[in-house]
């Protein structure tokens, strides 16, 4: 609708002409119809996997984490790999919603809601691992500094593991608030469409009495900008701090200053891969190909090329510095990574993360959803292996050859990891059913983008005038309960 974007070079963000009303209709439709059998099948599988995972977690909590494949040489392995993997995935959402917002990338509007939801679910999955790793998760509150009768004995503020606690919990809270603030106008839209009943009642509470007042919109825009400005350094800080879990130790292969930017690039890389995986399915299943367009997919693949390049550069730099430093332990750690017993994992990582993104240089591949989907899965696998390689290969041959060991995950560890996918997909499938997965308000504001100023529904001005006696101001004042008159069929 906005008439300032008239450049003929711009392509419309919404590829089909749509009116405001049609857009509301389309985005709200999946929530307002009963789920299809496909959804039920997918949901059933996700819940079954989640249930199995929950059982396995219950078993390891009851038995103790001795059921894992860890040994005294390799004290961190599968569990921390999965933690870093999920946290990394959780980075794309905030990147899309905050950083792309600050850069005025309007194409983000149709994917930010779902990407933020994905962030929240991924961070939930991530947070499970350290809590399980504690062995006694019911004492998890000990990581918080609170006055206690043990001294008071405080948490160690010099430990990166504690920084992680603050980083992840702040990240989750701020992302959740950001997501919710973004949802409020859309919740009101759903509220005003709903017939009296449970949906109406729930959305009435959740939309906090939003009226669409521009005085509120104006403040809302300010708040959104501020939150974007806060979330941008936050998202960078989170994976920076995760990387410090490793970088502040003295383990060869971990103790490197390149880790923070390297981890952040990897997180964005894997996060975008996961957004693509989810969005490619969602747009087809819900018929949103004109909202989440090929252009969106293409833009994300371009970000993947860039971040993939950054990750590749980091791999190369690590190797170079290991040689250039002249430190024999550092050199050994890296030679062992590439040619030692875990070389297979290293080369899977290199194939998936260094080689495969370059396929996106081809326009044909960038514009083929099937190819992008396949590559996004490859990148997800590659990024999982990156974390596995960093963690396990750095640990398994330590300074003392007599304590060298190998690590194999047990079924319990594998089951826990698969269980988190159950959690992730259960939450995501619920999300697509109960909330508008595309930001209605934001897409409406870009509907006219590059559309030559054609206002979609052109009513001839003052058409309905004839039906009413002209100056309504003389009628007795109407005290209508307005909220019920919001259906389209009701006369306005």
């Amino acid at each position: 609708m906005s008439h300032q974007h008239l450049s003929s070079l711009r392509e419309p963000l919404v590829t089909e002409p749509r009116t405001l009303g049609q857009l509301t209709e389309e985005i709200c439709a999946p929530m307002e119809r009963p789920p299809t059998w496909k959804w039920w099948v997918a949901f059933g599988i996700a819940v079954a996997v989640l249930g199995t995972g929950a059982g396995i977690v219950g078993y390891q909590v009851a038995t103790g984490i001795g059921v894992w494949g860890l040994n005294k040489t390799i004290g961190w392995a599968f569990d921390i790999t999965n933690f870093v993997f999920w946290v990394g995935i959780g980075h794309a959402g905030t990147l899309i919603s905050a950083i792309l917002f600050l850069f005025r990338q309007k194409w983000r509007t149709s994917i930010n809601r779902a990407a933020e939801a994905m962030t929240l679910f991924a961070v939930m999955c991530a947070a499970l691992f350290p809590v399980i790793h504690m062995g006694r998760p019911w004492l998890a509150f000990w990581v918080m500094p609170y006055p206690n009768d043990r001294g008071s004995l405080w948490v160690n503020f010099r430990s990166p593991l504690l920084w992680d606690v603050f980083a992840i919990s702040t990240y989750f809270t701020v992302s959740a608030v950001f997501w919710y603030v973004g949802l409020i106008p859309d919740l009101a839209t759903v509220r005003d469409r709903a017939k009296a009943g449970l949906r109406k009642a729930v959305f009435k509470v959740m939309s906090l009495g939003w009226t669409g007042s521009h005085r509120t919109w104006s403040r809302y825009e300010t708040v959104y900008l501020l939150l974007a400005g806060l979330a941008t350094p936050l998202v960078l800080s989170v994976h920076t701090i995760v990387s410090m879990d490793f970088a502040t130790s003295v383990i060869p292969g971990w103790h490197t200053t390149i880790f923070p930017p390297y981890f952040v690039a990897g997180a964005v890389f894997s996060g975008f891969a996961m957004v693509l995986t989810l969005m490619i399915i969602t747009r087809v299943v819900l018929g949103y190909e004109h909202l989440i367009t090929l252009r969106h997919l293409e833009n994300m693949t371009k970000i993947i090329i860039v971040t993939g390049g950054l990750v590749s550069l980091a791999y190369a730099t690590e190797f170079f510095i290991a040689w250039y430093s002249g430190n024999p332990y550092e050199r050994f750690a890296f030679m062992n990574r590439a040619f030692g017993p875990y070389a297979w994992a290293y080369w899977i990582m290199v194939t998936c993360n260094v080689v495969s993104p370059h396929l996106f240089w081809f326009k044909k591949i960038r514009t083929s959803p099937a190819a992008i989907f396949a590559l996004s899965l490859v990148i997800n696998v590659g990024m999982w292996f990156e974390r596995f390689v960093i963690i396990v290969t750095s640990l398994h041959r330590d300074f003392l050859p007599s304590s060298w060991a190998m690590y194999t995950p047990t079924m319990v560890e594998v089951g826990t990891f698969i269980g988190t996918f159950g959690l992730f997909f259960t939450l995501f499938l619920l999300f697509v059913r109960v909330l508008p997965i595309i930001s209605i308000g934001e897409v409406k504001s870009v509907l006219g983008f590059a559309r030559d100023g054609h206002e979609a529904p052109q009513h001839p001005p003052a058409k309905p005038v004839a039906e009413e006696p002209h100056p309504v101001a003389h009628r007795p004042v109407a005290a209508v309960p307005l909220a019920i008159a919001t259906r389209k069929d009701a006369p306005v």
Partner: protein
Amino acid sequence: MSAPVLIGYFDSEAQVLDATRAVREAGFVLHDVYTPYAVHGLDDAMGLKPSRLTWVCFGGGLLGCTLALSLQLYTSVVSWPLNVGGKPFNSFPAFIPVSFELTVLFAALSTVAAFLLRAKLFPGSRRSVLPRVTDDRFAIAVAPREAPSELDAAEDLMRRHGAVATDLLEEVAS
């Protein structure tokens, strides 16, 4: 407030922008404008001042940072100083990450809280909503300065700027 409020409904962003400007320039009291999405340029058209929420954000951040640093200094220097290899108790660089995180946390939460308070958004709000303004309509609400009869002129003005319907209400929530 029981002065009647005149509502003009519009179908497009361009019309509502023009009409808002016209209504304001004609000297009517602009009660509010209701839109399904944030219409850029409406701030100017309505003559709204930039929000002061940025100051809340700054204050919240400052508070978070101060609290975080005080907590870390108190626990590490005063309450339970721990000698680790002769390193200083006040290991300031190590306190930066947590201070940063709490700065962001406090700034974000206080901004959102202030926004909700200022915009009077809360669960259980019973505010009524104009028809279709959260869907595909735009509405301008005009209050008279003195006599309700002034609204005739306002209605005329809005019709000329493309209002598709008008309505008179007892009161609308802003």
